[in-house]
C-alpha cells in the first residue's frame, strides 16, 4: 500500500496544492486502496495486488485536463511553472539568506576602496614618528584592498551559486497554492512597510557621509582621505541595507507575479526593423554612414593632422544615425499599416 501512496504522491507531485487537487488525490487513493484490499482478499500477493492497482491507474494528463491544470507541455509553452508549498518555502529562505551574503559581498567591495584609500593615507601620514617608504605603503594598501576584494568575491560567488538553483523561475509566471498565496501576500504587505522605512535610513547614511565630507574637507590631507573613506563606508552600508531588504521584497513580488507587465527590454533591441523595406534601407544607410565616418576620422587625423578636432565626426554621425532611424521607423510603420 505504501508503494501505491508513493506512486500517487509522485503523480500528483507537479500539481498545485489546491483544495480540488487535494480532494482528487484523496479520492483516487481511496479507490485504489479499496481495489488493493479486494485483490488481497482474493488471495493475490502484495506485489500482484500493487502491480494490478498501479497498472490500472491511467493517464495523469487526462485528470489534469479535467481539473483545468495545464500539462507540463502546456505550462512550458505558456511560460508557467508550478511550485509546491515546500518549494516556495525553500525559495524564500534561500533568497533571504543570500540577500545577507550578497549584501555583505557588495558592501565589502565598496569598503575595499575605502580601506585602500584609508590605508594609503594612514601610512603616508606615518605614526609614532615613523614614516614609511612609498613601496611599503603601496604594498600594504594593496594587500588590504585585496583582502577585502577576495572576501567580497568569495561571498558573491558562493551566494550567486546558491541562488542559481532558482534561475529557471526568472521571467516565468509562477503558480502556487491559494493558501501559500495568502501567506505570501500578508508577508509582502508587512515587509513593504519595513522596506519603506529602510530606504530613507539608507539614504540618511549617504547624506550623513556627504555632510561629514563637506565639513572635514579643507583640513589636512589625512583627514580628507579619512572622510572620503567614511563616505564610502556609509554608501557601502546603505547599499547593504538596500540589498538585504530589496531581495526578499523582490522575491515576494516574483512569487505573487507582481513583477510581470514590465516592458521587456528585449523587444526593441534592433534599431532597424528589417521586416519593412524602410527598415532595410535605413539599416543600409546607417552602415554606410558609420563606415564613412570612420574613414573621414582617420583621413582628417593622419593626412590633415586634425586629431584635436576630428573626433567631432562621431557625435555628428550619431545624430545623423538617430535621424535615419526615426525616419525609417516612421516610414516602416506606414508600410506595416498598409
Amino acid at each position, binding site marked *: 500500500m505504501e508503494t501505491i501512496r508513493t506512486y500517487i504522491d509522485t503523480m500528483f507531485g507537479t500539481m498545485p496544492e489546491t483544495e480540488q487537487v487535494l480532494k482528487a488525490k484523496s479520492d483516487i487513493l481511496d*479507490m485504489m486502496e*479499496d481495489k488493493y484490499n479486494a485483490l488481497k482478499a482474493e488471495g493475490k500477493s502484495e506485489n500482484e495486488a500493487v502491480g494490478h492497482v498501479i497498472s490500472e491507474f491511467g493517464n495523469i494528463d487526462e485528470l489534469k485536463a479535467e481539473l483545468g491544470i495545464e500539462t507540463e507541455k502546456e505550462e512550458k509553452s505558456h511560460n508557467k511553472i508550478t511550485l509546491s508549498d515546500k518549494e516556495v518555502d525553500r525559495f524564500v529562505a534561500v533568497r533571504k539568506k543570500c540577500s545577507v551574503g550578497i549584501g555583505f559581498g557588495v558592501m565589502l567591495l565598496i569598503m575595499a576602496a575605502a580601506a585602500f584609500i584609508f590605508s594609503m593615507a594612514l601610512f603616508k601620514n606615518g605614526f609614532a614618528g615613523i614614516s614609511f617608504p612609498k613601496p611599503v605603503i603601496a604594498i600594504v594598501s594593496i594587500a588590504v584592498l585585496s583582502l577585502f576584494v577576495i572576501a567580497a568575491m568569495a561571498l558573491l560567488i558562493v551566494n550567486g551559486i546558491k541562488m542559481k538553483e532558482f534561475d529557471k523561475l526568472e521571467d516565468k509566471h509562477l503558480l502556487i497554492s491559494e493558501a501559500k498565496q495568502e501567506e505570501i501576500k500578508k508577508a509582502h504587505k508587512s515587509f513593504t512597510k519595513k522596506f519603506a522605512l529602510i530606504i530613507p535610513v539608507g539614504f540618511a547614511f549617504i547624506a550623513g557621509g556627504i555632510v561629514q565630507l563637506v565639513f572635514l574637507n579643507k583640513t589636512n590631507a589625512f583627514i580628507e582621505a579619512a572622510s572620503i573613506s567614511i563616505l564610502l563606508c556609509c554608501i557601502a552600508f546603505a547599499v547593504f541595507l538596500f540589498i538585504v531588504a530589496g531581495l526578499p521584497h523582490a522575491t515576494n513580488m516574483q512569487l505573487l507575479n507582481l513583477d510581470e507587465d514590465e516592458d521587456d527590454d528585449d523587444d526593441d533591441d534592433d534599431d532597424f526593423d528589417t521586416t519593412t523595406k524602410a527598415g532595410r534601407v535605413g539599416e543600409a544607410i546607417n552602415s554606410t554612414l558609420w563606415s564613412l565616418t570612420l574613414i573621414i576620422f582617420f583621413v582628417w587625423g593622419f593626412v590633415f593632422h586634425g586629431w584635436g578636432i576630428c573626433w567631432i565626426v562621431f557625435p555628428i554621425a550619431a545624430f545623423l544615425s538617430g535621424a535615419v532611424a526615426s525616419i525609417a521607423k516612421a516610414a516602416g510603420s506606414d508600410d506595416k499599416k498598409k
Partner: protein
Amino acid sequence: MKGGVILISSDVIRGYNDTIILCLLLEGDSYGYEISKKITEISEKKYVIKETTLYSAFTRLENNGCIESYSGGDVSGGKKRTYYRITEAGRQYYAEKCKEWDVTKEVINKFIKERV
C-alpha cells in the same frame, strides 16, 4: 489485443463513460471502487476503466450537475469515502444519451459488414 480477446479502447468509449456511470448510479448510490468493479464485471472484463478516467468522469458529471457527492461509509481505517448519487438532471441526461446511442448504433451497423 491479448490472446484473441478484443478489449475496447478508451478512446472509443470516451463518449460513453458518463452514460455508463449514470446507469450504475440509477440502481443506487455508490462509490468509486464499487462502480469500477461493476463496470469490469458487467462488461465481462472487456472494459476495465482506469482510475483517472473514472475520476475525471465523476468530476465532469458533478460540474454538470448530473451527480452529487457526499461523504459516507468507511474504508478500513476509519476514514470516510466519497459516495455519489444521481440527480434529476442526471436522469434526463442519461435518457438522452440512451437515445443517442440507439441512433449511433444503427448508423455504425450499416457500415459494419457481416462476419462470415
